[in-house]
């Protein structure tokens, strides 16, 4: 093993303030959850046309980030790429934290969250034909496997880490294919129904996972005054560019397939409908064009600052990709009968984000940031400093 890992001291003012701020936000999220639990989901913006709201957007987004960053860690532990070793532990830890957040987000979106355990009564009380029940196995197993993986890495067993790394990476791919299948297999929603959806989700997961890893690593290393290796970030950037292109191709093929067939109303709605600006500005603009311009610019793709900017743009862009699929995608009205359905039954669903669900989502993200910071303090995640440098606090990536 080259290099060793240490914990952060976490005594600085910046660290303490960050923990307090994130703790307060997480607490606000908890209050919002209690309100939504007591008053019912009328406090959310969702309705019978758009049944899923911000928590589900957040959930699939976090699953993507988690799976992406876990697959990346396998570069070191499975393929033996030593240059990524300084960040590999961080990647696995991020994956564990993020999948926990994803399950939390699904939990708060359940109408009866106290019955969540019914999702995990596999084969006994579950309908195993349901994509949700299958994903219950995938998410639960993924959480356990990545915890074991992290434990083995901490124990420093290289051979065992290699085997669990392979299993974990394969499982992470399954997790994302499964998440895409939740949406892609629903024939009733034209904007969702697509065989490419699982693959698109996988590509989006890898894209956002690398991007978040770049952001987290650069932020953590800079704020703790560690040296950020230009080469490492630049090679991650090249990886990111490749994933973005794969994602773009998949999105393009998916839209084109649906545009080519005569039943193209749904995809026209997605591409040119009232909320299609989210697609063009965030998903394509911020999620693909901006980062690709940066990543293919010979000057910019060598500097950490610009690479970080590109990665941050992708993190935001992929979030809105999920947002656009879950909320405006579901709002497209269903054709119950041929002709124009009058009134509320044929109207495009409206969706107004409510303060409660925004606080809830922010609270979940804050809780994850808190776990991340506490993890840095109590687990040996960051590479050891060269002697005589003193570590300092850092803030949430």
């Amino acid at each position, binding site marked *: 093993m080259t290099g060793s890992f240490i914990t952060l001291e976490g005594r600085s003012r910046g660290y303490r303030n960050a923990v307090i701020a994130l703790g307060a936000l997480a607490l606000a999220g908890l209050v919002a959850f209690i309100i939504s639990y007591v008053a019912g989901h*009328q406090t959310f913006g969702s309705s019978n046309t758009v049944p899923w709201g911000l928590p589900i957007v957040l959930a699939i987004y976090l699953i993507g980030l988690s799976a992406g960053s876990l697959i990346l860690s396998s570069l070191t532990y499975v393929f033996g790429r030593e240059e990524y070793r300084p960040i590999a532990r961080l990647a696995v830890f991020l994956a564990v934290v993020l999948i926990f957040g994803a399950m939390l987000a699904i939990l708060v979106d359940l109408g009866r969250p106290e019955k969540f355990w019914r999702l995990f009564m596999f084969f006994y009380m579950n309908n195993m034909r349901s994509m949700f029940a299958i994903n219950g196995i995938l998410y639960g197993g993924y959480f356990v496997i990545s915890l074991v993986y992290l434990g083995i890495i901490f124990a420093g067993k290289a051979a065992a880490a290699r085997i669990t790394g392979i299993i974990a990476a394969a499982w992470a791919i399954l997790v994302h294919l499964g998440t895409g299948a939740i949406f892609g297999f629903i024939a009733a929603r034209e904007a969702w129904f697509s065989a490419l959806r699982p693959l698109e989700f996988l590509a989006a997961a890898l894209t956002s996972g690398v991007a978040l890893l770049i952001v987290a690593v650069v932020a953590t290393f800079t704020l703790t005054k560690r040296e950020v290796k230009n080469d490492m970030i630049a090679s991650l950037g090249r990886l990111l560019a490749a994933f973005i292109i794969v994602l773009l191709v998949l999105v393009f093929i998916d839209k084109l397939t649906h545009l080519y067939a005569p039943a193209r109303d749904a995809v026209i709605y997605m591409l040119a409908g009232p909320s299609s600006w989210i697609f063009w500005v965030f998903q394509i603009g911020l999620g693909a064009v901006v980062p690709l311009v940066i990543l293919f610019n010979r000057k910019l793709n060598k500097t950490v600052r610009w690479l970080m900017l590109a990665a941050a743009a992708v993190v935001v862009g992929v979030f809105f990709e999920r947002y656009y699929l879950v909320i405006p995608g579901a709002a497209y009205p269903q054709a119950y009968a041929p002709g124009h359905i009058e009134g509320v039954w044929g109207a495009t669903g409206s969706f107004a984000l409510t303060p409660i669900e925004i606080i809830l989502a922010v609270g979940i993200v804050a809780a994850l940031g808190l776990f991340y910071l506490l993890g840095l303090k109590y687990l040996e995640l960051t590479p050891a400093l060269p002697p005589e440098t003193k570590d300092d606090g850092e803030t949430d990536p």
Partner: protein
Amino acid sequence: MVIDLDKCTGCQSCSVACKAENNVPSGSPEEHTRRLTPFWQKVIAVSSGEYPSVSIDLIPMPCMHCDDAPCVTVCPARATYKREDGIVMQDFRRCIGCKYCIVACPYGARSFNYKEQEEMPYHRPDLPPERADRGPWPFPRRVHGVVEKCTFCFHRIDAAIEEGKKVGEEVVPACAEACPAHAIAFGDLDDPDGNVAQLLSSRQATRLREEMGTSPKVYYLLR
């Protein structure tokens, strides 16, 4: 169930009767515009054509009780299931409120309880005492956070079978009973001599969204 579109006047008696029979919560107009109000039975108006030559179809839409119901497939908690007689049921005790069935239903037949039900607007001595989220219907109240849908008034059917009455002639679901135009007929589709089979053979019939492959059990006699 067979619905005669020629007889339907769009009076919404079926929707109202259904709400009364099953204590489906009513909501404010604003909630209805946001699509928060549960409906087990709705009547949609479908227009086709341009101004001088327009035709309007009024289509009452209960749950279609599909033979191959997408909601049954996607429900992770086995809260939605198909009974032996083909009625697709919803068990509030099992429902975790993930809303996947609302997403998957091609007919918009399912509603989520977005808020706690208000006090019962009327008295129903024939129903057992309140046991909020326990067991399937008939229970007058349910908690918020569960999904509900039309049950073809299965409590009426079950009671009729127990008492030896003829389902479809003496006892029908509340919507069929309330329809002033007798547009809704209810009965056993498998019975070749039944009222429903006779209606179906009399005129051209269709089902909604047959391309979905769900084989709905609600037929429409065309105008």
